[in-house]
């Protein structure tokens, strides 16, 4: 019984991280109809930057902020320079561009920081809570992870629902040509969408880094899981991304606990295939073909 509880709690924690990555993918998909396959590599870079700042200044929180800021800049630059030229063309082209970016960033990460994995500090204790006589697999750091991802999700929800710029972003995402006629600077909205998505991704990176040794290829499974979570919840649905992340986190936690961690990537693949075959638009989709 405690095993089940442990797996559930740790599933919630990793699920929160998947939710953040899924949110990043969903934001970009909604805005520009592109799946950002480079998201994992982008958050790898921002996490390395965070580590560099932490090592230079000795402060975790400065590194944390550095990750988010570098994510903001990286996302904006990538959209403006690489994605803008291929938006609206054949859908295969942005797929190839993001895969190329993934390859390039992994290589650059290896060039700058080397391929040997490094450890990343956690801001809060990694010792499980003591309940009664037992120690849970859930730590104060996990509480931080869950709370901050919730804050991110709520912040984005408020931004989109209650602010003028969020309204413009939604209009630009749903009907870009009409939005232009309403005075919305659609290009800037796309750039902003990518920047915010990259911040979400950067957040996921620093949150998961303490448990995954930091290396150029170590974030591949995170991207896959984030993608599966996003598809599970519906690529068009931010709340779906959060729920999808939690559900996937739980599912993979149980698989890892009861079947062993080597099966986790295959389990993620199996879940992806099942969702795509049975309900391709995801659990929360209200999607229609996007019109211009």
């Amino acid at each position, binding site marked *: 019984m405690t095993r089940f509880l442990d797996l559930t709690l740790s599933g919630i924690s990793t699920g929160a991280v998947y939710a953040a990555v899924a949110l990043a993918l969903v934001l970009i998909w909604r805005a520009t109809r592109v*799946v950002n396959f480079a998201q994992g590599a982008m958050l790898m870079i921002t996490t390395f930057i965070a580590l560099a700042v932490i090592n230079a200044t000795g402060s975790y929180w400065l590194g944390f902020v550095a990750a988010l800021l570098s994510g903001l800049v990286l996302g904006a630059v990538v959209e403006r320079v690489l994605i803008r030229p291929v938006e609206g063309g054949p*859908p295969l082209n942005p797929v190839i561009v993001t895969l190329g*970016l993934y*390859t*390039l960033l992994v290589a650059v990460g290896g*060039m700058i920081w080397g391929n040997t994995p490094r450890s990343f500090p956690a801001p809060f204790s990694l010792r499980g809570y003591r309940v009664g006589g037992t120690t849970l697999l859930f730590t104060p750091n996990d509480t931080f992870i869950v709370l901050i991802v919730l804050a991110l999700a709520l912040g984005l929800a408020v931004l989109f629902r209650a602010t003028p710029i969020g309204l413009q972003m939604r209009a630009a995402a749903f009907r870009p040509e009409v939005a232009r006629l309403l005075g919305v600077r659609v290009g800037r909205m796309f750039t902003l969408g990518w920047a915010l998505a990259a911040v979400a991704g950067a957040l996921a990176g620093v949150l998961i880094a303490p448990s995954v040794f930091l290396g150029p290829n170590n974030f*591949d499974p995170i991207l896959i899981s984030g993608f599966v979570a996003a598809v599970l919840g519906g690529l068009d649905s931010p709340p779906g991304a959060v729920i999808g992340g939690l559900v996937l986190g739980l599912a993979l936690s149980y698989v890892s606990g009861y079947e062993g961690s*080597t099966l986790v*990537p295959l389990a993620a693949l199996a879940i*992806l295939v099942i969702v795509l075959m049975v309900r391709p638009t995801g659990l929360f989709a209200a999607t229609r073909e996007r019109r211009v």
Partner: protein
Amino acid sequence: MTSTDPALREPAPGRATSAVRRAVGENTLLRSLVLVIVVGVALLLLSDVVTTYRDLQLSYGAYYFCALAGLTMLAGTSGQISLGHGALMAVGAYTVAKLRNTGWPLVPELAAAVVVTLIVGIPMGAAASRLRGPYLAGATLALAVGLPALADKFPSFFGGENGLSVNPSTPPASLGANFPLERWEAWIACAGALIVLFALYNLMHSGLGRSMRAVRDDEIAAGLAGLRVGRMQTLAFAISAACAGLGGGVFTLVYQSAAPGSFQLQLSLYLLAGVVIGGLGSLVGAVWGAALLVFLPNWSTDLANSFSLSTNVSHNLPLAIYGVVLIAVMLVWPSGIQGGVRALSRSRSRRLRGAGARSSAQT
């Protein structure tokens, strides 16, 4: 009124040669046979004159071509993207490894690799036919990342981290006692590549190829016109998988081993880069792509050494270059090298026609 421009006048052919040319031109099968024979003879001569190291590179190029040709057909003619072709090569590679270790001879084990990957490719293709663009890319990406895990899960069967090693295929005695192993392997590899060339050339120029292109361009219209969209896409996927499987089988023979480390996600990305730079849907482009994959690692190592770059940089340089290639080609030259060649030849013929019109206007 016929033009007097010599560039435009039809050359007056001998009657026999024109009849032959007409027959070959109209019949795809005949054309592909001629192509295969010509290329085959050229490769044979090439393998004889070059060093054994180059023969080895020829083998590499050949097995890359198998996978690249299949992938370029899938992406270009059928309009489906796959990031899992590295994993499909692994299927072919391990099939040959297992069979070779139980004593199967050369041709049957390669045929088995083709058959096994074809069979694996059918359900994959059926699933893929229901997925579009990024979903398909994501699913095949998950496959590429997840499939190597199988080797870890069943280490005894798959040989675990170190994989399976096999004995090389020795050249038959009729070729002489000193016949180099590398040249023999190059012959095997090139034979495989020629088979793939023959099969795909016929496929892409046939009615089936036309139907696939129709589906690629407008699925709904094609379905309304009576084409069995799902079936066609599944077939395309399965065939391209079989090509990758053949390439993987040849890989095992050349490297004399099949290990998970050779078939990671990176391989699938290299294959994608190869078809993108060559031009999607172009068999000649697959040749360019194979050349890229064979020569780039060496060139980048030389480059790194000449600039005395650190090991971190030189180790990651090929990967960085592939990434830049993928991005740059998409941004600047979306139809790849072969598309660029085609565009050049089109503008050249336009210029010739323009010159013809000008000179005829003068007369």
